[in-house]
C-alpha cells in the first residue's frame, strides 16, 4: 500500500514538474492520499467486521449456502445432462467442467443471496418463520426439490404445456407444504422471474446455450425450477439462521 502511494506520488510529481503546474500535481497527490486513506479505512472496516460476530455468522451462513448451491447446481446439471447424453463416457465430466464452469459458482452465489435474504426479510417484516422449524422438514424439502428436477429431467411429457403445468403444481405444492409464508412466496416468485430473465438475456447474447435442441422446452420448466429452488434455499437459509443464531 505505501509503495503504491509512493509511486502515485512520484508519478504525479514528475508530471507536475514537466508541465510546471505544481498546484495541480499537489492536488492530485492530495486526492490520491485521500483515496488511499479511504481505501485503507474501508479495508480496515471490512477486516474489523470480519471479527464481529454477527458478520462472521453471516459469512459462515453465506458460505454454507454457497456450498449447498454449488452442490445442488452440479447435481441438477448432471440430471439435465442425462436427458441429452445417450451413454455416459468418462469425458462428460470434462465437458461439464469446461463448457460452463461458471454456472455452479453463479448458482452458489444466488443461493447464498436468496438464503440470506429470506431470514432478513422475515425479520424485517416482523413475522418470524414458525412453520416447521426443523431440519427434518428442510431435508424433506430438498428431497422434493431434487425430485421435481428429477421428474423434469427424466419423465417424458406429452407437450410443454403439460410439463409446465405439472411443474408449477409441484412447486406450488412444495411451497405450501414447507413454507406457507407470504414473504417466501413473494421472494420465490421474484427469484424465478429474475433468474429466468437473466437466463434469457444470457441466451440471447449467446453467452450461454442450451444443450437441448428445443428452446420452448427449457423455457417451460425454468421458472418453476427457479421458484422451487428459491423456496428450498430460503428454507435452508432460515434454518441456518436459526441454527447459527443458537450456535
Amino acid at each position: 500500500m505505501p509503495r503504491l502511494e509512493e509511486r502515485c506520488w512520484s508519478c504525479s510529481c514528475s508530471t507536475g514538474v514537466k508541465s510546471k503546474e505544481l498546484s495541480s500535481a499537489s492536488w492530485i497527490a492530495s486526492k490520491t492520499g485521500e483515496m488511499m486513506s479511504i481505501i485503507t479505512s474501508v479495508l480496515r472496516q471490512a477486516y474489523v467486521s470480519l471479527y464481529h460476530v454477527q458478520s462472521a455468522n453471516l459469512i459462515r451462513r453465506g458460505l454454507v449456502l454457497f456450498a449447498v448451491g454449488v452442490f445442488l447446481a452440479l447435481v441438477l446439471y448432471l440430471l439435465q445432462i442425462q436427458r441429452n447424453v445417450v451413454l455416459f463416457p468418462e469425458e462428460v465430466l470434462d465437458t461439464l467442467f469446461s463448457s460452463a464452469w461458471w454456472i455452479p459458482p453463479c448458482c452458489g452465489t444466488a443461493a447464498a443471496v436468496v438464503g440470506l435474504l429470506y431470514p432478513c426479510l422475515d425479520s424485517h417484516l416482523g413475522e418470524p418463520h414458525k412453520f416447521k422449524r426443523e431440519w427434518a422438514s428442510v431435508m424433506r424439502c430438498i428431497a422434493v426439490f431434487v425430485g421435481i428436477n428429477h421428474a423434469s429431467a427424466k419423465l417424458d411429457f406429452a407437450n410443454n404445456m403439460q410439463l409446465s403445468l405439472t411443474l408449477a403444481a409441484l412447486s406450488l405444492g412444495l411451497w405450501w407444504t414447507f413454507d406457507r409464508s407470504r414473504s417466501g412466496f413473494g421472494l420465490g416468485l421474484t427469484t424465478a422471474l429474475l433468474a429466468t430473465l437473466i437466463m434469457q438475456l444470457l441466451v440471447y447474447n449467446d453467452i450461454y446455450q442450451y444443450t437441448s435442441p428445443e428452446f420452448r422446452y427449457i423455457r417451460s420448466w425454468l421458472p418453476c425450477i427457479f421458484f422451487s429452488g428459491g423456496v428450498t434455499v430460503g428454507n435452508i437459509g432460515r434454518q441456518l439462521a436459526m441454527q447459527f443464531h443458537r450456535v
Partner: protein
Amino acid sequence: MTVRERLRQNISAAFYRHGLLCASYPVPIILFTSASILTCCYPLLKLPLPGTGPVEFTTGVRDYSVPSHGTQGDLGERPDWYRGPPVAYIQQVLVKAAVSPWDSSLVPVDVFRSPLGRVFSLLEEIRDHVYTDRSLESLCLQVTDLLPGLRRMQSLLPEHGCLLVSPGNYWQNRRDMFDSDPDILKTVHQHEPKGLHTSATLKDLLFGVPGKSTGVSLYSKKRVVTYTITIALSSYDARFVASLRARLKQLHPSTNCSLREDHMVHVHFKEEIGIAELIPLVTTYIILFAYIYFSTRKIDMVKSKWGLALAAVVTVLSSLLMSVGLCSLFGLTPTLNGGEIFPYLVVVIGLENVLVLTKSVVSTPVDLEVKLRIAQGLSSESWSIMKNMATELVIILIGYFTLVPAIQEFCLFAVVGLVSDFFLQMFFFTTVLSIDIRRMELADLNRRLPAEAGMPPPKPGPLRPREAPPPSRPSPHTITLQAPAFRNLRLPKRLRVVYFLARTRLAQRIIMVGTVIWIGILVYTDPAGLRTYLAAQVSEQSPLGEAGLPPHLGVAPVFPGGDPTSTLNVLPAPEPTPLPENQSQGHGEARSGPAPLTSPQITWGSEDEEVWRRLSFRYWPSLFSYYNITLAKRYISILPVIPVTLHLSPQEAIETRHPQDTQHAPRTSAKTTELQADLTLYKVAALGLFAGVLLVLLLFCLYRVLCPRNYGQNGVQHGRRRRGDLPCDEYGYSPPVSEISPLLLRGHSMDIECLANDGMLLASCCLAGQIRVWDAQTGDCLTVIPNNGLRRSSSSGCWEHRDGWDPSSPARNASTPIMDNEHPLRRRTTPVRPALFGDQPDLTPLIDTNFGEVPPSQMMPGCGFDFGELVERAYKEHEASPPLPFPPSPPAARQRRRSLGDQSVAPPEQVLLAPWDWDSSVWSMELRGNLIAAGRSSGKLELWDAVEGSLRCCNEDGSSGITALAFLNNRIVAARLNGSLDFFTVDIHKPLGLLQYRGPPGRASLPPSPCYSSEDVISCQLTRSVQCAHQKPITVLRAAAGRVVTGSQDHTVRVYRLEDSCCLFTLQGHAGGITAIYIDQTMVLASGGQDGAICLWDVLTGSRVSHVYGHRGDVTSLVCTTSCVLSSGLDDLICIWDRSTGIKLYSIQQEVGCGASLGVISESLLVTGGQGCVSFWDLNYGDLLQTVYLGQSGEGQPVRQLLVLDNAAIVCDFGSELSLVYVPSVLEKLD
C-alpha cells in the same frame, strides 16, 4: 361444522378404542402385522432383483430366428425385451495355445510369444472365410469412428470396418510388427490403467478373457495361453457361422472338447448408470438419510430412542415393500427404476405421523395406565393424522390426473404405500410404542423415587469443598466485572471449529461413512464381486434362465428358418472320435506326454463355454460404447463359442523368438513385470495405512492439545467452577458481552427467604427475620426492619456495610449511585475521599463497629437502629462548610427528601409497638406502594412502612401461619397453613387529603401504586375469611386482574373474585399438588403441579384449555408470554410451549439443580437462575445469550428466587445477598 365435529368425535373415539386394543394385546398384534407384511411382500420374490446387471435369455441355435418387433401373441416365457434384432451377434473364437512339449531350452517368453503369433494366421483365416459368396465383410458389424475422447486407443481398436477384436490389435493386426516387438509384455501392459480399476480394461477387451487366465505372463504355471477373437456380426447367417466353425475346427481340432454348442445367449443390458446418474441418486439417498436422521432424532422421552427410531424406519420401509408387493400382486409391474423413486417415496410417505404419535402418547399423563395413555395419545392426534392423510391422498390424486404415465405410476405406488403405512403405524408402531412406554414406566418407577428423595440435600462431594462463604470478599458491594483480559480472550475460531468437530464427532463419522460407501462400491462393482454374482444368481434363479428352456424349445420347433446348419456341421463336430491328437496333431512333434512335469495341458471344461461370463459385466457395453453404440435397454446375442486348440512345437517357438527375448535376464524381469500390478496395490494399501495412522496420530495430538481435560465428562459443576473466571460456555463460545454486571446488595446475615417488589422498591426478608428495603434503581438499602428477637449477634455484621439509610442522610442518596459505579471498592478501605464528595459530612467517625458495647437500651426496639440523630448532627456541623455544586439527584430521591426531610425525625409509630412476638418468622411478604405486608408464621399480618421502617398496622385475626400473600389495590389476601383464605382491606385515612403517586411513569400497563404517606392512618381489617378454601395447605397464591388464584396440595386450583371474595371456580385436573401458578392482567391462568403437568385454564369459564406433560417431577415455575408458556421443573428442564396449541416448541436442559426460577424480561428474553449465576436466553430461538456470574468466586449457591423489575432489571437472591442485574440492551429495546 357439526358434521365435522361429529366426524372428529367418531374418529377420536375409534382411535381410542384402537389404542386400547393395541396396548392390550401387543404380541398377537405384532405377530399379525408381521404376517401381513410377509404376505404382502411375498410377490416380491417373483420380481427380479433390482440393479443394472444384465439379464439373460437362452434360446437354441437350431431354430433361431430374429424375434419380431410386434407384441402380439403370448410369447410364453420370453422376456419383454426380447424383441427385434439384437445390436450384434457375438461370435467368439476361444483359442488355447501352448508350446508342447516344454523343454528346458525355452525361455519364459516363449510361453506366449509364438502362441500369440498364431493369432494373425487365425485372423487371416477368419477374414478370408467365404461361404457361398458371403464373406465376413458383408455380415459383420461395421463400425465407424471411435469416440473423440479415445484417441489413444485409435491404433488399438478397429475403425471403419468390421468390429473384430483380438490380441492382434496390439500390433495393428500385423505380423511384422509383432515380430519386431522386443517386449510383448510391455506392449500389453502399457495400456493398462494405473491403480485400481474396476471396469473392463483394454487387456480384457482385446484378450476376451480375464487378465489372469490369459497366461500371458512370464510366471505362468500352466504355460497355456488363452485368448479370444471376438467378431461382432450385424446379421445372423446360420450357414456362414456354421461353416466358419467347421473350418476352424477342421484346421485346429480340439479333442476332449465337449462344449455345448446349441445355445445362444441373449444378454439384455439395463440402463447404464454412470457417474452422472449416480451422483443425483447418491444425493437423493444422502438427503433421505439426513431426513430420517433428523426425524428420528426428535423422538424424545421414551425408553429406547434407538428402538423406536428403528421401528419407525421399519414401518416406512416395510410399507414401501408392501406397496410394491401389492402392486405386483395385482399385475402392475414396476417400470420405473426402483432405486430412483425409492427415496422420493419415502419422503412422500414420511415419518411425520410416527413422530406425532410418539409425541402425543408421551405427553399424556404419566400416572395413567399404559393402555389409557396409548389410547389417549392416539385419540388426541387422530384428527390431525386423518386430516394429513386425506390431504396427502388428495394431492396424490391430483398427481394421478396429470396423465403422465410415470407420475401416475408413482402416484399409484404412493397411494398404496400411504395406506399400508397408515396400517402399519396403527398396528405395528403403536404396539411397539406401547411396549416401550410400559418399559419406561417400570424404569421410571425405579428411578423416580430416589430422585425425589435425593433432591433437596445439596450434593456435598469433593467438587464443593467450601460450603461457607469465603472469609474475605474483596469488596462490599461487588460489581463483578470480569477482568478485561478475560474478555479479550475469546476463544479463537480454530478452537471452536475443533470443538465443533469434537462435539459432533464429524470426522469419525465422515471417515466411517466414507469407508463403508467405498467398500460397498468396491464390492458391488468389482468384476468378481457382488454384482456379477447377483447377476449370475438372477439368471440362475429366474425360470427364464437357461435351465428351463431347452426342453421347451426342443418340443416346439416353431421357427422353420435357420435349420440346415445344425444338421450339417454342428452335430458331427462336437463328438469327434478321440484322436490321439497329442502325437498326430500339433505338427507331428513327439510329445513325451508323461515325462516332463511341466508340460502344458490344454483342457476344455464347462467354464470355457461362456468365457464372457467371467469378464466384467461391463465388458460388452464398454466395447460398444467406444463406438458410441449404447447397449442400454438393448440386447446382444452371443453365439456359442468356437474352440480352437493350438499346439506349437518348441522349435517353432524358438524360431519366432525376438533377438531380445533371450537377453532378458528371465527371472528378474519376470519378477518385476509380474509383480508390477501387485506392487501398485500394495503401495496403495501401505500408503493408505500410513495415512490412516498419521491421521489418527494427528487427531489424537489435536485432541490432547486443544480439548480440555474434562471434555466428555458430564462434570457440570466442574466446568462451572472454571467458568467463574473464564466467561465462555461449554464449547468455548462466549457471547458478545454487553456490560451486564450484577450489583450485589449485601446486608442480610442469613439466607434470603422472601422477595417482593413494586417497581421502585424492593423488599427482602432473610431467615433471621430482618426485612430490608432497597431502592431498585440504585441498590441502596433504604430501610432496615430488624427482627429484634434474633438480631443482636447475627445482624451486627451487616450494619457496617451500608451507611445510606434513607431518612437520615438524604444527600447521600443522590451521590451513592455515582460512587457505586466508580468505586467498586469498599468505602471503608478508602479513607481518603475524593473532592467530588466534599459536600458530604464525613460520617466515618460516627460508625461504631463495636456493637457489643452499645447498651441495649439505646436501641429502640421495633424501629431499628435509628442513627438519624447522629447523622443529623453531623450534617448540621457540615452545613457550615460551603457546598460544592453537586449533581442533580434523581426525582425520586428528591421527592423523598422533601417529604421526609421536612418532618421531624421522631417516628410516631413507636406507640404501636407494645406487644410483639419475636419468635415468629416471616413466611411471606408483599410490597405495594410503600407498604410492606408481611405474613408471619404466627398468623400475624403486619403492614410496615417501607420508607420509614415503621409498623403501620398489625392484624392478628388468624392463628395459622400465613403461607402466601397477595396485595392488590387495597386488598390483601392471605393464605394460611390450615387451608383458609383471609381477605383484608387496607383503609387509609388521610388527614390532609393529599394523594400522592409515586413510582415510575414508565409502563402504562401497570397502575401506579398509591403512596401511603407517613401521616396517613392505615388500618387493616379482615373482611372475609374463607375457612376451608382447601383441604390441605395452600401452596401458591397469585392475584391479578381482580382475581385471586390459589393452588393447594389437595390437587385443586381455586379462583376467587377479589372484590367480594367469592369463589368462582374450583379447577380440577391435576394429579398432584399444585406447585406453580401464573396469572396476569390478560386473565391467562396456568398451573403446574407435582405430577409434572401444566394446565392452561380459561379464567372466564373455568374450563381447561390445554393439559400437557413436560416434566418428570414437580413444575417449579411457570411464566407466560403472549405467545408461549414457559415452565421449569425439578428435572432441570425448561420447556417452552406454544400457548394456543399446547405444543412443546422446545426445551432447554439445564444443569443439575438450578432449574427452579424463571423470569421473562420483555417478550423474548428469558432469565433463569443457576448455580451462582443467572442466564439469559433468547426465547425465540432458545439459545443462551449470556450467563452472568453473581459472585467472583463462582460459589455454587443456587438462585432460588428471581424477580423481574419494571426497569428491565432482575433481582435474585444469592445466599444471604441480593443481586441486582441490569440488562441494558433490553432497556434500550424497551425505550
